[in-house]
């Protein structure tokens, strides 16, 4: 059996014919296995969905309670038979509930890792190396230029700036699921105990994180109904970065735009986006994490998807590992 007999790409997504399921399909299918709750991986409209409990909860929050026909929660590490194949979910360290999916048949194991990171993250379970024959890796930051520094050092920059510019509101752009909560938790870890103001798009997800035991402290809506603009001086406001260009941002005094993203490593990206304070905080693996993970899995073959596939394929070639890009459509290159 060739690996591609076990899993291969179809227009709907990565497909397992013997188990008759898709992993993170981009179109509605009969049976979908979902790695994590980001909208390009977790779409509504499938008949049956298998995912971790937390991913299912997050999908219900984002897409409504009827996001799928039936759902089945998969505990991490537990095995399940689907047709002729054995499937198990393992922590990916990306966001709350995120998992890698292991697909095994006749002694051959393929791990679809979804999005993953190796850096410490107090808001989700740490990545676990699953030895495999074929490792499917994301490539969002797959260039040797990407090194994510220690996230707490970046949060330290934010806190320093609030001390330097107390008259300004610090607006921190962050992905609504995962990054926003991680930034807030990191702020708390550094002793920041003032209320954190959040955009409405973050409310339900942040409440869910709190209910799962991730303590984010005092979160308040960033609305001005009861107060005036000056109340937000010296405040930290967390919001999806797209809102900065919106009229929404005008309620804050002289806002200072920060953005928590792995892309902030590139100065020009920060400059183009009008970001004054780039915070290099990423929920994806950087170059060293990607290459170290490939080595640790012991995989003899690597399939590379969404991102800068060519560089990671090149690295595998240089290190004697068979590799090819896996052309999947519909995933956002810009995730993070």
């Amino acid at each position, binding site marked *: 059996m060739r690996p591609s007999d076990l899993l291969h790409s179809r227009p709907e997504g990565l497909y397992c014919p013997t188990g008759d399921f898709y992993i993170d399909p981009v179109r509605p299918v009969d049976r979908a296995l979902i790695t994590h709750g980001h909208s390009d991986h977790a779409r509504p409209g499938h008949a049956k969905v298998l995912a971790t409990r937390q991913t299912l909860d997050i999908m219900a929050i984002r897409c409504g309670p009827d996001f799928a026909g039936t759902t089945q929660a998969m505990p991490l590490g537990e095995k399940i038979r689907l047709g002729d194949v054995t499937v198990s979910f393992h922590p990916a360290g990306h966001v709350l509930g995120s998992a890698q999916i292991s697909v095994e048949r006749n002694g051959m194991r393929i791990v679809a890792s979804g999005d993953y990171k190796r850096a410490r993250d107090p808001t989700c379970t740490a990545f676990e190396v699953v030895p495999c024959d074929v490792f499917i890796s994301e490539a969002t930051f797959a*260039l040797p230029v990407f090194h994510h520094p220690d996230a707490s050092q970046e949060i330290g920059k934010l806190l320093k700036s609030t001390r330097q*510019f107390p008259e300004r509101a610090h607006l921190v752009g962050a992905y609504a699921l995962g990054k926003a909560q991680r930034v807030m938790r990191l702020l708390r870890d550094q002793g920041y105990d003032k209320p954190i103001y959040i955009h409405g798009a973050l409310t339900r997800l942040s409440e869910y994180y709190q209910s799962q035991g991730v303590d984010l402290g005092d979160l308040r809506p960033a609305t001005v109904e009861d107060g005036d603009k000056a109340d937000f001086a010296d405040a930290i406001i967390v919001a999806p970065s797209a809102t900065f260009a919106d009229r929404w941002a005008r309620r804050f005094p002289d806002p200072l735009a920060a953005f928590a993203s792995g892309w902030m490593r590139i100065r020009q990206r920060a400059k183009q986006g009008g970001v*004054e304070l780039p915070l290099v905080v990423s929920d994806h693996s950087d170059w060293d994490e990607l290459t170290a993970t490939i080595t640790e899995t012991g995989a003899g073959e690597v399939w590379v998807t969404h991102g800068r596939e060519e560089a990671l394929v090149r690295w595998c070639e240089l290190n004697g590992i068979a590799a090819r890009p896996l052309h999947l459509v519909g995933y956002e290159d810009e995730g993070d």
Partner: protein
Amino acid sequence: MNRFAELLDRLVLTPSRNGKLKLITDHFRAVEDPDRGLALAAITGELDIASVKPAMLRQLVSERMDPILFGYSYDYVGDLAETVSLVWPEAPESRPNHDITLAEVVQKLQSASRSDGPAVLARLLDQAETSARFAIIKLVTGGLRIGVSARLAKQALADLGSVDVAEIEELWHGLTPPYTSLFAWLEGKATKPEKAARALFRPVMLSNPVGDGDLEKLAPTDYAAEWKWDGIRVQAVSEGGIRRLYSRTGDDVSGAFPDVVAAMEFDAALDGELLVGSPREATGTFSDLQQRLNRKTVSAKMQDRYPAFVRCYDLLQLDGEDLRELPFTTRRARVEAFIATLDPDRFDLSPLVAFDSWDQLEAMRREPPHPIIEGVMLKRLDSPYLAGRPKGPWFKWKRDPHIVDTVLMYAQRGHGKRSSFYSDYTFGVWSGAEGAEELVPVGKAYFGFTDEELKQIDKFVRDNTVERFGPVRSVRADRANGLVLEVAFEGLNRSTRHKSGVAMRFPRISRLRWDKPPAEADRIETLQALLD
């Protein structure tokens, strides 16, 4: 080194002047000598480090990584210094147990010989962290490009010590990196450094614009008038064999004007306007002058084609005597007598303009005899030469700006306070044959309107967006639909860089013409006529 690197990273992304000042003064407060003084030298371009060519950087990196992976990286990042700083292999075993200081970096770079320069640079990059590597590469490739002028750095020093920036400017050229005595004085730990060096800059006297009703309160007999020349303000100082030509902010621009410096055979400090052309025959335009500006060195051909000279209007010092306390009339008599002794190809006198009444002067201001005159200056006859911009003794009364009706074409999001507003506008005028008119962009402006008008334009932009390119939107602009902006500007230069062939000087929005149909905006020919 990490602190310096962080400062550079913050400065390049901080748009507001006050924000930059705060970052720099905080750095001076937090960092000790000599690192802070070296940071100051790096920002003001006073740090003398042998430069490294981009090809050498590529060579160093190609010895350390796969060229194909480097190629992918460089293609993605687009900037060589940044790419190299990011892909440079981490070498934790070569890191010293402390953050290497800027002083160590500068010392190693300055003492490296030509042949071991690359190896020294590579060792430093091994020892540094990512942002620090970028800062080191910027230091050796020349040009930090962080949007901070020497003037702004001096203002930060003034803020640090709560002194007037003129005091810093006056001392500046007598000081050298790492400026330990300067910081000690600013922090109140030592007395003001002596003005040790010769041919120092003297802070210049500046004027205020004539405002509404100002002249009614002033007697024409108390003032002298001169033409206001559209060149650059300079101070020519020669003292004890040292010759310096300074810009009005105290930057030494001698290197770009060797022709003028060669003729400074005197012991004096002259204040005047730098112009090009021949003082006795034809004064060149501002476009001509621009050929000579912002150059570190200048070719003989350039000097021949655009000879520079100084049109003098004040004398601050002569043969060791400080004249600044004397009244204008006395200084004027001294400068007139003095200019007569100088090389007439390089120094001439800015003539006084005789007038009896403000109305008469107004008429002359409106119809100046030469295109490089941009108005008149009024100088109080009994006033000494005072540093800064005192209110009352000197006025500038500029020619009215040119006005043109344009159509808004593109709008870009602003920064800081304006980051949620489309506040930077590119505007165009019509060109092409009748029936086939097209808008051609002629300039960009981001001020001149009120906050209320900004909101209105922002709404117009959002409601009329045709296309988006990142932070820029193109807006609906055709013969029947669009927003007419009345734009005021000071002058027009030929430009090969702009499609329209013209570049405006100091353009700003003067009025929003919601009432005017775009078809009635001006045509490019109106602007072209101003060029000749």
